[in-house]
């Protein structure tokens, strides 16, 4: 373990931090192991990693806010020399909010639905002593004034009017701003932001990141940004800490780490991130396998199972974090032995795509309005005259932010919801409002892959049953034939056919999405509608699934509708892209054209907001946006 000397600049020193949970079966689960890092005043530090990497747990452990059975097992957390790991509850309370402010991932649930925004801020201000200043009433008035100031600072328009509104009356981005205001209220030295933009649209994400950067610059508050998004890291932080399997695998200046990763995991992760600059029809390299199961973790390097450089010694001991070059540390024995940085990832490989065939699916002027409860007479228009065509062997990418109507479009095309107007034609035949029997036939042709692999699989059925369900419904084969076909489909989707008798809950996200794909392929459809199929997946897994879909299209000649909010992914997989905004397609064209030569201002804004995992100077980016 390297021991860095304490300097006056060091605000927070974390040494050998370990966190344990007790699993329901009584076994001990080590979520974080031997994490050490320092944070200097005013510094911006990103902690990046995939699910299960221990990044959020580390953040929560700093102020001892571990949920459930979580506890600090080793190490210390020195805040200006005070060890928070040993502090009393009262001392911790004085630190929380006042010295370390926190922002959480999901602004939908992180605010108390029954309290007004003003009350939220008031609670923080009251907790940190602005109470005893004057009389009760004056103190209260003072707090309110301060709350308005704070809301104004984080960019809530008309703060004096909105201070008495409840959280549900704000948009997601505004709620995140309110959370930031709360974190700032105690004028902390450190702002700890745990995936602050993950649930937000790209354009909103951009605004929030800008706000955080401004705050860091103006108030000198150190920022610890926990994220899974390399683009966000590149965009916001000077230094980055890469975590995997509960340990820090690499630590160094962002520019250095992103361009010359030393740890094979970092390298693999960067290679898996889709880049907007990559042209259509290229293939990403994912990291094989899936993030580790912490309960099964042995003594060796957590990444050993997925590593290309793995050696025998990697499996016997946890590699120490050693300084490899100036300011860059990595925890990898093979990498430490190398003098050269790892070779740059291979540029995305171009894949040969068969030419597209005849038009299979055609939509013309689709409309869909949802009746909104409580609002009399007025509905929410999700689709407002959408027209598109899809050819055999073609991938049509549909991009848009939340509320743009892209998911509704998917559902209307897949006949999960009826449209209110317009027509859908399948191979020239009008199937807008099919009769029951006809609908059955249409559904055999058009299948769907869902966004959330957790929610779209029936938790009560085994994988085999789930995949066999469409076969039964469409009356395909007898029992034995079905079993054989299920095995075939699972293999096709990259799963071991032996898993057929297990339940979805024993699979990881990526594997579940493979199950969903196997199910969708079961009736041998000609059109596959993929509604955000990779949004819920880790980056390394995302590349695998995208690759799978591309392969399937090539092999089966499928027509794909690929819906996503991430332009980079869409560009890679799609022949053509349609950009949706407020229920309308605002622009469509070939994938490369749209990304390189956008016409619609909205498309341009989307492109500008997409964070790229390339270190850039913020000032430069801004001018880009303006241009």
């Amino acid at each position, binding site marked *: 373990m390297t021991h860095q000397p304490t300097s006056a600049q060091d605000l927070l020193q974390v040494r050998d931090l370990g966190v344990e949970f007790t699993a329901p079966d009584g076994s001990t689960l080590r979520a974080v192991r031997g994490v050490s890092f320092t944070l200097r005043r005013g510094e911006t530090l990103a902690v990046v990693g995939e699910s299960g990497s221990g990044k959020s747990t580390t953040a929560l452990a700093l102020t001892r806010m571990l949920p459930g059975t979580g506890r600090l097992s080793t190490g210390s957390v020195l805040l200006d020399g005070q060890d928070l790991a040993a502090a009393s509850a009262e001392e911790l309370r004085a630190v929380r909010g006042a010295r370390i402010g926190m922002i959480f991932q999901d602004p939908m649930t992180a605010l108390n639905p029954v309290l007004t925004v003003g009350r939220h801020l008031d609670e923080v201000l009251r907790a940190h002593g602005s109470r005893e200043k004057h009389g009760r009433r004056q103190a209260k008035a003072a707090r309110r004034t301060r709350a308005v100031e704070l809301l104004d600072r984080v960019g809530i328009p008309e703060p004096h009017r909105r201070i008495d509104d409840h959280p549900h009356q704000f948009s997601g981005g505004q709620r995140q701003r309110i959370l930031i205001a709360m974190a700032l209220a105690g004028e902390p030295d450190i702002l700890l932001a745990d995936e602050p933009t993950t649930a937000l649209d790209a354009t909103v994400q951009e605004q929030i990141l800008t706000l955080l950067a401004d705050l860091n610059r103006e108030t000198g508050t150190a920022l610890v940004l926990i994220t899974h998004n390399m683009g966000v890291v590149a965009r916001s932080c000077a230094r980055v800490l890469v975590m995997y399997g509960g340990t820090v695998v690499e630590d160094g200046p962002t520019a250095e780490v992103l361009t010359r990763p030393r740890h094979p995991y970092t390298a693999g992760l960067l290679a898996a991130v889709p880049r907007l600059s990559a042209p259509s029809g290229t293939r990403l390299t994912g990291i094989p396998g899936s993030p580790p199961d912490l309960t099964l973790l042995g003594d060796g390097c957590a990444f050993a199972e997925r590593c290309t450089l793995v050696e025998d010694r990697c499996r016997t001991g946890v590699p120490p974090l050693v300084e490899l070059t100036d300011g860059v540390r990595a925890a990898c024995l093979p990498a430490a032995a190398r003098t050269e940085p790892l070779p740059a990832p291979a540029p995305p490989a171009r894949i040969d795509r068969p030419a597209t065939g005849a038009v299979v699916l055609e939509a013309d002027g689709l409309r869909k309005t949802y009746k909104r409860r409580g609002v009399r007479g007025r509905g929410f228009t999700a689709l407002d005259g959408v027209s598109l065509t899809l050819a055999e062997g073609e991938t049509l990418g549909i991009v848009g932010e939340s509320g743009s109507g892209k998911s509704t479009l998917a559902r209307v095309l897949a006949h999960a919801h009826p449209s209110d107007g317009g027509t859908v034609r399948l191979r020239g035949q009008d199937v807008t409002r099919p009769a029951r029997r006809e609908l059955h036939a249409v559904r055999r042709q058009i299948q769907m892959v869902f966004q*959330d692999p957790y929610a779209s699989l*029936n938790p*009560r059925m085994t994988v085999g049953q789930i995949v066999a369900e469409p076969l039964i419904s469409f009356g395909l084969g007898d029992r034995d034939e079905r079993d054989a076909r299920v095995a075939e489909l699972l293999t096709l989707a990259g799963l071991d056919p032996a898993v057929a008798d297990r339940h979805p*809950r024993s699979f990881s996200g990526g594997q579940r999405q493979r199950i969903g794909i196997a199910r969708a392929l079961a009736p041998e459809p000609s059109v596959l509608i993929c509604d955000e199929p990779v949004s819920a997946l880790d980056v390394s897994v995302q590349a695998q699934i995208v690759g799978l879909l591309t392969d399937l299209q090539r092999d089966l000649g499928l027509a794909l509708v690929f819906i996503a*909010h991430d332009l980079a992914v869409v560009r890679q997989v799609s022949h053509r892209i349609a950009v949706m905004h407020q229920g309308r397609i605002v622009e469509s064209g070939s994938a490369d054209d749209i990304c390189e030569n956008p016409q619609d201002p909205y498309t341009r804004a989307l492109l500008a907001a997409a964070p790229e995992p390339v270190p850039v100077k913020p000032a430069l980016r801004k001018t880009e946006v303006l241009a």
Partner: protein
Amino acid sequence: MTSTPDLAPASPATLRKPVRAPQKGTLRKTSRHPYRAALSTARARTGLVLVGAVVLAGLLAPLLAGHGPTDQSGLSLAGVGTPGHPLGTDDLGRDLLSRVLYGIRADLGIIAIAVPVGAVLGCLFALAAAAHPVLDTLVQRIFDLILAFPGLILALAVTAILGPGRLPVVLVIALAEIPAFGRLLRGGILVQREREYVTAARVGGSSGPRVLVRHILPNAADPLIVQVAVSLTVAVFIEGAMSFLGVGVRPPEPTLGSVLSQSMPYLAQAPHFAAGPLITVTALVLGLSLIAEALNREVRR
């Protein structure tokens, strides 16, 4: 009248990534059936032992009881430990141990019919409600009506109409259970129907009935399992209350409720009279509620 107002939709931002607790992944290992997991907790085991003991005692009544439950003697209100009468005797000199054991038997016979009947009827109503909005309104009003009616008055009226015996007891219990199960299942169906796996099943070509039976019901049924345990408790109470009001099972057949209500006038002079049935009822109800709690925890996960 929906008693739980539906939440108004929040702003339509979709969740990109499920919020995950840091200890996620630990659940992956538990591939056992959730109910079995729930029933193997210490709490549920205690409950199972209690209920099991009571049920076993009831089933083995003919072997365990030394006397016929209706055999009278001149020995009124003999105390606990009287030779031949371990729990003593009642006012008519009947052996209390036998009466309690046979009482358990009678109660089990009633609740084992009444609760399933109520549950099935309630579920049928819920299915009807799920089928069509008009039916839904109608069914909900029916539930309201049942809930609004004072149960014991209903019990008196039903017994007066049907005459004494098990039938009115079973009927009243079943009636009381209908809205409990019906509302629960209706709510469950409404929630599950919006789940994505249901859309997936429909897109996968499953017919309406198949989606309901194969996909929605198994998932909506979880709370019903808990409700069964709760309802069994309620059933024991209803039986008791009806006996107390003199409209229970036809005498002289003992039920836990009737022995208990017969003991009430002697509570001061012969407390042992009430002790047997009271302890039995308490053990049964306690056991059931422990099981319900354990299941409930598992279901809520």
